[in-house]
């Protein structure tokens, strides 16, 4: 496995700076005034010390009666005691639990159903940020369940879908302030029933799994040809050919080229064991790496083969039977796969389940006997790795963003409620407040689209 930072994909938006950034900035400026009027703006977060909490770090076990010090939005200390200066505000967390913020690596929230550009099986130049509605109530409801970071993905109608947006769930701030700074880009691929159903029902390619994978291979052949054309042009320029004509930019092929260049994390919707193997083979053939299989309900069958590929999974805990390719789903999948060496995250793919991913983690104690440490990691550090933000968030370690949740009960139990949720050290949810409990938001949210899943209805 290449773990060097050189393989870390570039920041997603940079590629499009020329064509789009100016507009984004202009819009941001225009919005700033309005936003300030509508919402309380983010203030410099206060330094805080939590004392006497049960601190579940996700990276180095649980500290009973532990302390955590937040300084300037970062975690500055964690342990039995911390060296915070005298006068730092103290939160007495006696009888409470402190965890990293919950991270969902597979969400379609806040997109107003614009999940699938289901008009072609290859749409890599779609950007989910273009549909992101930062006022959607789903974000707030997830925040109240302790969710601090989400990967908003394209749907699974297309073999090669669009590019994801990573958000910090700072409900109440303006849209740009909710984007996760410096998060790498991810692109959504799919496989199996959804693409073949969507296009097959229109008598188009693909209508079979053979068609599915051939569509993908053809797309990469097109991309390779595009890259070769670019290389040839660059070579001419290097030789000093002043008459060389640059090839026309093609947004679709450019995005695919970025996959082949390793600039985008590849996140693949995939259920069946045989398809994991095919996907890995195609990735080897074209020279990219698969960051994670999503859903991955049959991973327990081939986990020993996938583990060496360093491809993670983002899976449901106990969903099954909703479609043929979910027929062999078993709730022990996550822990069995983990024991075989696969990095496992749990995810929602649902505006419902995103509100209680902590309980989904708790089920892993039941289904397979995960330790509490392993279970909490499945909804914090492991999904952070899948998104590529594990250096910034996902565990309670010094230097990381202060994305924290204070719970009234063991977060792996049915009974846990998030009391306070901090993102970058700032309080974004406080259940003791009247009304919505959102210090940064008061007003009316959007959203009547409650499903938040792309898997059935929206796959069309």
């Amino acid at each position, binding site marked *: 496995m290449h773990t060097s930072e050189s393989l870390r994909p570039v920041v997603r938006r940079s590629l499009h700076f020329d064509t789009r950034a100016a507009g984004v900035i202009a819009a941001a400026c225009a919005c700033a005034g309005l936003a300030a009027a509508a919402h309380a703006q983010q203030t410099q977060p206060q330094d805080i010390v939590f004392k006497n909490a049960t601190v579940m770090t996700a990276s180095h076990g649980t500290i009973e009666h532990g302390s955590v010090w937040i300084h300037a939005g970062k975690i500055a200390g964690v342990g039995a005691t911390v060296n915070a200066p005298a006068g730092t505000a103290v939160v007495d967390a006696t009888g409470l639990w402190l965890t990293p913020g919950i991270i969902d690596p597979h969400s379609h929230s806040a997109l107003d159903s614009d999940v699938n550009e289901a008009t072609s099986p290859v749409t890599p130049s779609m950007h989910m940020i273009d549909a992101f509605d930062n006022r959607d109530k789903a974000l707030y*409801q997830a925040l109240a369940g302790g969710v601090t970071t989400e990967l908003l993905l394209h749907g699974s109608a297309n073999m090669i879908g669009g590019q994801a947006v990573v958000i910090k769930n700072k409900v109440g701030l303006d849209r740009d302030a909710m984007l996760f700074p410096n998060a790498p880009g991810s692109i959504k691929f799919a496989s199996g029933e959804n693409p073949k159903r969507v296009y097959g029902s229109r008598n188009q390619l693909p209508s079979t799994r053979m068609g599915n994978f051939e569509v993908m291979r053809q797309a990469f052949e097109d991309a390779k040809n595009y890259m070769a054309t670019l290389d040839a042009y660059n070579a001419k320029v290097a030789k000093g050919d002043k008459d060389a004509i640059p090839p026309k930019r093609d947004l679709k092929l450019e995005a695919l080229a970025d996959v082949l260049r390793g600039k985008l994390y590849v996140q693949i919707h995939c259920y069946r064991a045989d398809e994991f193997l095919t996907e890995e083979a195609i990735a080897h053939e074209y020279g990219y790496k698969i960051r994670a299989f999503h859903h991955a309900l049959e991973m327990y069958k081939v986990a020993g083969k996938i583990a060496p590929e360093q491809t993670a999974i983002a899976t449901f805990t106990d969903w*099954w039977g*909703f479609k043929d390719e979910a027929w062999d789903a078993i709730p*022990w999948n996550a822990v069995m796969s983990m024991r075989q060496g696969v990095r496992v995250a749990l995810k929602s793919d649902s505006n419902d389940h995103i509100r209680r991913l902590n309980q989904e983690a708790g089920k892993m104690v039941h289904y397979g006997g995960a330790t509490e440490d392993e279970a909490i990691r499945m909804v914090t550090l492991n999904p952070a790795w899948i998104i590529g933000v594990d250096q910034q968030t996902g565990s309670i370690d010094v230097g990381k963003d202060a994305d924290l949740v204070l719970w009234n009960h063991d977060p*792996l139990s*049915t009974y846990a409620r998030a009391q306070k949720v901090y993102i970058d050290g700032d309080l974004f949810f406080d259940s003791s407040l009247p009304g919505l409990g959102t210090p940064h938001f008061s007003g009316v*949210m959007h959203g009547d689209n409650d499903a938040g899943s792309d898997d059935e209805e929206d796959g069309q």
Partner: protein
Amino acid sequence: MKKRTGYATNAPCPVILSSPTRFQRVKFAMNPVLGSQQWLRAPFLRFFSVARAGILSAQSALFIGSEAQRSRKPALSLPKGTCFLRSCCKGGKPQHDLRTGSIISVALLLAVLPACLSVPLSAEDSAKKVIAISGARLLTVSHGTIENGVLVMADGKIAAVGEAGKVAIPKGAQIVDARGMTVYPGLIDPETSFGLIEVESDQNSRDLAEPSDEIMPHMHVADAFHAETELIPVARLNGITNAVVAPASVDTIAGQDIFIQLAGADRDAMILGRDVALAMNFGADQRRRGGRAGGHAEFPSTRMGLITQLRQTFLDVQDYVAHRDAAAKKDDKADAGKDTKPDAKKDDKGDKIFKRDLKLEALIPYLKGERPVVIGVYEGYDIETIMALAQEFHLKVVLNHVTHSQEVLDKIAAWKVPVIVGSIYDFPRANERFDAVYTLPSELAKRGVKIAISSADAGGPVSSHSSRNLPYAAGFAVAYGLPYDEALKAITLNVAEMFGFGDQLGSLDVGKTANVVMANGDPLDVRTDVKQVYIQGVPVPMVTRQTKLRDEYSK
């Protein structure tokens, strides 16, 4: 039976007791008396298929005895003649080294055949066994918690329940050492689609609702109930022992529910009650609007239409009953020739013929208030509208869903109607606090409303694939203020009472059906593992298609 991977359902894999793996520590030996439905249905056939597989492929290894017997402390004494098979078949290929040669394997298999045939083959035989669960924490539901209790099951019923030392354990009873365990009545899911659906996306396996008309009271769930569904063992494994099966909430009147037990020799043994309730729905979803999905609007396309149609239907039933009774009276007079009613004609033999209308007839018991009408309704104003109609016709109402009814909770309490709350995971409206629905069970219980909680997922139709998560929905209600005892009642006794089974099910009381669950902790907590489920006093093998897959791939 559904496919899928080509081995698990079809291959002879009657794994009764798997060896303890790191994923599953088996603490309780299972009595292979009551299997999955297939196992129960044809034990002989199943056994011979095992034997055949062994002979033909010589790939089955057989182990006699059990892990529990080999372990230091057997938790259950095993009945004489019990045999445990552990098949190593998978897709017809050997999965691990055979400890014996194939010939020996076959010989062994044949040698133990007679022993295996002495396994009690019916629930009836086995129900005669007396089992005493000793030392557990008993959550009786009806009369509090007994910390160190004894529960005796005999003849399919609960024979005794009380504190250890105060309950006599009958001589010869099989004693289950349940120290450290929590024991509670089998959970009852008040709204499922068991046997009406197998794979959600597969139309051929869906018998959820008949959408061709709005008024479909003559749709009997019993006619579609597929008892061998794989969903039932999966739910049972987590302690669900009974359920209501209802049609999906598409039609204004969708059909009539059944009340089932999640084990039994066949469909008839599993259906404890046919047509136990009428499934009604009222609200925006029932309007025939066409809309973005296509189609065109047709009557009734508004709530005005829906209510008018319902009222007319109920009046039609009253008229039908009047005519039917009149015809019957004339018939009684045995003077057939004088009848002039168009719907009461004379046939060649002179007997009275009254043309039955199955649709209207189906509604009679409900208009008489003999059986409950479960009305699925979400919004407060819709609840007020439909309750006015229900009161006009004296229906015996159980409200269902009510998740956007926060402003009429006092009225619901005043009507004294029971409520199936939920899904507790339904979404609040955009202007509501995140916990507006989570707190609903607590708010209703606070007002004295009798509540049940169903396993339904948020937003959509019931997905009974997740019925096993029923206790967690109740636990979540506890997190948001519902007293623990009320939460447990909401998935046991209250459901039984709402559907007419309160005298048989729902609590640990002497004389009730011995549907009992033993778990290693709090049943409402997601981390708890159910160790043994008893249905009618018989330990159900803790085996499902999913545990088989787990065990196959854990080797």
